[in-house]
């Protein structure tokens, strides 16, 4: 007997009119027969799932990447991606989590371990022999773009080192850096903090956990609940105090706002406060701009920049605020990608059996980037794993839009990825 509930999704089932729009746009079923499409494994198979059921009617749900394009196009509001996530959790509850998925779900723990001796960790991980072993033994794809631990220390170590230099101000924001910024890409956090301080905001960086998304998308709901509960405990008081909680990892802010409370049925007051207090960074900057408070002291940034709003950003349903803000920068020509998905979908593209699917899904985005011409020196995307996949698929360096914005304010070196 497992604990997966269908509470929040079941009532949306009857809204499914079997129009197949989701299947027409699903980027995964477009490239593989292993995934028949959202309608089939989602609302259709759901008729055969019920609490406490022993056998899952459809194991192919594991091939859903969780990109949420189906939710994006559904005309009647069926929670297809959530149905699939819960169905996967039901399978996991019955059959257990493979070691590989356990590892991929523990992004924070891996980050911490590598951070003890990042140079050694990078050497140990990023060599052909270990990647071959990881592929054969664990099932982590040899070619997939795993990140490198920061060899200049974590973001929080930098914050401690520079604490006396940090701006003090009555205007304050809370920064949710998430695991990738803490351990792999502290420069993204530095760029964000520089932009906040440029606007006169003091940045509070309270203790925080992994948002739990890697576990949610691997069906480990119970473990994810622990993470989310701790985040609610530490962060909701800030939300209650009126401080916006702003993140640069768009999938993590989405998890705090919606994925975790939705999938874990957490509807208590503190969870709701966190939902309403959390902002994706460009969502917040856009709000600042609407109030006439966004600084426009930009320098010219002569770049042709293909920008991909990743699936998890689009799932916020806030439009593409980064497009509008970057559009203010003189000299910068942003080209919007309409590609459905880069393919990697968090931990999906790291799995040996799914690596090629992820690359085939990403082909649409890679060819869009290539079609922009040889003068493209960077691409931009709000999600870290998508940036790594973009770099892997195009061999062109990728940046978070906040790095682009920080550079336009003259605060950041885009090439060295360091504050200036």
């Amino acid at each position, binding site marked *: 007997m497992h604990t997966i509930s269908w509470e929040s999704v079941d009532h949306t089932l009857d809204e499914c009119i079997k*129009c*197949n*729009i989701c*299947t*027409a*746009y699903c980027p995964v*079923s*477009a490239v593989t*027969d292993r995934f*028949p*499409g959202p309608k089939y494994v989602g609302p259709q198979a759901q008729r055969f799932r019920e609490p406490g059921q022993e056998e899952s009617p459809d194991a192919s749900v594991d091939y859903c990447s969780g990109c949420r394009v189906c*939710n*994006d*196009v*559904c*005309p*009647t*509001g069926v929670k297809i991606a959530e149905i699939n996530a819960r169905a996967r959790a039901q399978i996991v509850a019955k059959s257990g989590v493979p070691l590989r998925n356990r590892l991929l779900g523990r992004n924070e723990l891996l980050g911490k371990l590598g951070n003890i001796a990042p140079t050694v960790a990078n050497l140990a991980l990023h060599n052909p022999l270990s990647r071959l072993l990881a592929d054969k033994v664990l099932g982590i794809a040899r070619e997939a773009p795993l990140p490198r631990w920061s060899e200049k220390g974590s973001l929080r170590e930098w914050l401690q080192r520079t604490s006396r230099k940090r701006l003090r101000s009555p205007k304050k924001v809370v920064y949710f850096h998430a695991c990738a910024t803490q351990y792999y890409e502290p420069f993204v956090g530095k760029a964000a903090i520089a932009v906040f301080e440029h606007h006169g905001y003091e940045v509070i960086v309270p203790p925080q956990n992994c948002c739990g998304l890697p576990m949610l998308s691997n069906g480990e709901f119970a473990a994810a609940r622990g993470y989310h509960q701790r985040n609610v405990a530490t962060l909701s008081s800030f939300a209650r105090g009126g401080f916006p909680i702003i993140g640069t990892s768009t999938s993590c802010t*989405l998890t705090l*706002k*919606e994925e975790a409370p939705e999938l874990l049925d957490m509807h208590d007051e503190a969870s709701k406060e966190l*939902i*309403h207090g*959390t*902002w994706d960074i460009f969502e917040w900057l856009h709000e600042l701009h609407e109030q006439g408070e966004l600084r426009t002291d930009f320098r010219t940034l002569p770049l042709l920049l293909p920008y991909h709003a990743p699936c998890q950003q*689009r*799932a*916020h*349903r*806030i*439009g593409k605020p980064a497009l509008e803000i970057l559009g203010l920068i003189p000299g910068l020509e942003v080209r919007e990608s309409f590609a459905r998905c880069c393919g990697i979908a968090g931990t999906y593209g790291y799995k040996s059996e799914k690596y090629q699917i992820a690359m085939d899904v990403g082909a649409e985005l890679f060819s869009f980037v290539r079609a922009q011409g040889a003068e493209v020196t960077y691409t931009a995307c709000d999600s870290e794993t998508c940036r790594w996949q973009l770099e892997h698929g195009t061999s062109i360096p990728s940046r978070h839009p906040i790095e682009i914005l920080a550079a336009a304010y003259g605060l950041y070196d885009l090439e060295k990825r360091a504050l200036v």
Partner: protein
Amino acid sequence: MLDLLVIGAGLSGLTAAIYAAQAGLSVRVITKGLNALHWSAATIDLLGYLPDNSPIDAPFAALNHLPAPHPLRQVGDVTLRQALAELQGWLADEGLVYSGAADEANLWLPSAVGAKRPAYLAPTAQAAARLDDPSPLLIVGFDHFNDFYPALIAENLRRQGHAARAHILPLSLITDRTNPNNVHLAEGLDDLARLDALGEVLRHIVTPGERIAFPAILGLAQHPQVIAKLQSVTGAPVAEIPTLPPSVPGLRLHHALVRRLGQFGGRVESNMAAVEFGTEGDSIAWVATATSARPLRHRARTYLLATGGFLGGGFNSDHTGRSWETLFNLPLSMPASRGHWFRPEFLDPAGHPIFQGGVQVNPAWQPVDAQGSVLYSNLWAAGNLLAHADSIRTRSHEALALATGAAAAQAILAQRQMI
């Protein structure tokens, strides 16, 4: 601030958005999900049947038989003809050629089950299967492709006196996939090299004078090239017949319209369900959509409601017999009680009263109350939420959406010029 916020991205909303964007307005289209074109044959139906159910050959002449307040009569012939011609022009620019019969007559085309259906404009590939053309149809399907039944279509057509035969080919001729849908097949056929084997096989099956009719899967982005290549390899005219959804012709039409809008700076934002609105005096101040956390407010100078009727999500109803417009709660002309929603016969030629109800507008396409007073000074409405539309029954769905979208956009532009 936006010049125009369009709520609903169906044919009427997209048409209005394109008109406005072409005139230089800043436009955003918000929609809960993607539109009904995805499950339509993507023909532009103008008027197929009179209210008494008799089929129509000359739709323009027959418009007079519609009730006077019907939106198509309110639009008028001039705007209607103009909108149809505009659409043809936009689509041709996108490589999607739509054509009609001579002398403004209806085309009669085979449906997905081989029934005879009226359409005013059709993609050339569908028009090529027109049933007034006496040349026989070779209807080709593929084994294990379950969304298209050539034998059923051919038999139905023969019963109606049209020469047709069916032929099934192995699916492996056109794909390596085992369980693909229409869209996967169409995307696969965009790779023109895949057509060689198919064309070669068909060249030996088709007889002189026959037309080859395929399920509507002949390419997405490369659709014209796919048709041209198949015609050249087989030496026969090539046509498409609609399939079960998802509709590839619908996707082509939707993509072409969204691209057109994008060229003029207009955006379509999907997964944005409008949930509330605010007013200032007698005008709409903002419309808010649901997000992952807080409602997102969209502010515009003018607003167009194009959310459709019950099917589109523009209306809802409950068991008490109440029915309502889902965003602004505009008054609807609807039967007074639930007992009067439907007539006893499902296929009653007079239709059902509930589908004839809807939003009432003045001649400038602004929603009005029962007394005819404008409800909000900066709100317009278009498409199948309009009262008296009942467009599925009369086969006027697309032309009604197109023409009222165009007319509402023109009304918005005219009012802006006055300001």
